[in-house]
């Protein structure tokens, strides 16, 4: 009985749904479309439960870190406090009928904490890239030299100053993006596509079972 509920039934559901989702792509009949829409809505609802699981998992991980006094455990206090505060502020008073109300605490947290933090983190990247480029972009080998030259041409060719230096630079940067880059990307994408199709087929036929866990 355990075998049926833990393995056979999930495999059967996976197989039947895979068959249906492949089938619906080619059959635009109304009944098929309605079933498809219904199943998509079910997926969204199931997905919402995953969020609860995510919150539980996050809280659990950080409580364990605090309990064990793991390295940098003090940041776990921050995570849990921020999570709790934002949920409380959002649930009680700041979010009504969907949107966050302007001028309320939720907006305040968003505008004065989240936006500056995210903007700062992203802005710092420029400084680290400059430092990393200075130290790492060295012509150690032929391949490294090709990479270095490509980076230099694209960096200069993709900004207006490149055209000011020489009209060849933007044209060459454009060629690099549209010919060698495109060829490599296409090859990678075709490979990924074939790999994804093979994996999907393995999951549908029950050959790949790692998503069952254990």
């Amino acid at each position: 009985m355990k075998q049926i509920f833990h393995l056979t039934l999930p495999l059967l559901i996976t197989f039947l749904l895979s068959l249906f989702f492949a089938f619906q792509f080619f059959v635009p009949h109304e009944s098929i479309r309605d079933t498809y829409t219904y199943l998509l809505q079910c997926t969204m609802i199931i997905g919402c439960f995953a969020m609860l699981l995510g919150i539980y998992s996050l809280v659990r991980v950080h409580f364990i870190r605090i309990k064990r006094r793991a390295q940098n455990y003090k940041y776990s206090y921050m995570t849990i406090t921020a999570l709790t505060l934002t949920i409380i502020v959002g649930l009680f008073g700041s979010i009504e009928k969907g949107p966050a109300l302007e001028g309320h605490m939720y907006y305040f947290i968003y505008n004065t904490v989240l936006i500056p933090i995210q903007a700062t983190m992203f802005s710092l990247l420029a400084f680290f890239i400059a430092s990393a480029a200075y130290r790492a972009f060295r012509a150690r080998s032929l391949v490294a030299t090709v990479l270095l030259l490509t980076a230099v041409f694209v960096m200069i060719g993709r900004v207006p100053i490149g055209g000011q230096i020489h009209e060849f630079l933007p044209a060459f940067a454009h060629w690099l993006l549209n010919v060698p880059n495109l060829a490599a990307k296409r090859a990678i994408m075709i490979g990924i596509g074939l790999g994804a199709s093979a994996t999907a087929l393995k999951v549908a036929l029950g050959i790949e079972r790692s998503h069952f866990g254990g």
Partner: protein
Amino acid sequence: MPRTVKIFEYLQHLDRRIIFLMLAIVVIIPMIKTFEMPVTVTPEVKKAYDEIEKLPEGTPIFMALDYDPGTAAEMAPLAEAVIKHAYSKNLKIVSSCLTAVGVSMIESTMKTMSSDFGKVYGKDYVFLGYKPYPAIVIMNMGESFRDPFPNDYYHNNLDDIPLMKGIKNFDNLGLVCVITSTSGIDMWLVYGQGKYRFPMISGLSAVMATDYYPFLYSGQLKGLIAGLKGASEYEKLIGKPAWATKGMVVQSFAHVLIVFFILICNICYFVTGKKERRL
């Protein structure tokens, strides 16, 4: 050790704080002092512009504005340039934000931009807001907008909004414009454009744009606006230079400095006899 070699040794292992300081100076100066640099329009941005330009007045378009505050410096000028173009052509905009942390910011942008052009909510534009799981939302929207979004962001029933009256799904829109700095673009391409075959243009952050050139040439993307550079080109096309055009001057100086760093570092590397040290 000769003195020159010592200098090169020093330069090769220059304190990173000096690099940070130099970059900060190079970024700040063009922001304070006005410099002008001509922007050249690339074919992929022109194609995106033409797709909007050819739409008849009053056509509804869909704008997926999927970016967050972290990438707003690059993506907001891009989104604003496209919105300006759409509004100047009197197109109607249905928009959404499928990035959880960007919703309030996008809503504010839509509200401000629409107000600047004297557009009325519900008649000229609609903001659907956010729903989790972008792939599922996109697939649902392909069937009917009312499935994932029975109500808009302000909790109005979609059937009560005048602009949404004749709009069921992507078939009723002139164009889909996805402006994103996330992997959400893959979902729009695979689950949206791939299945429902709507005309689509995209604005992407510069770092991810190179991955999507194949879709431009396969015809799945009708146009591609890449990063701040693309935004500045778009601003040039609509004749309204703004933040992206100014930003390109800053970016030009920063890129030149980084290339200068690379050059110095490599000269030092060769002069010092390619001595390797731990970074």
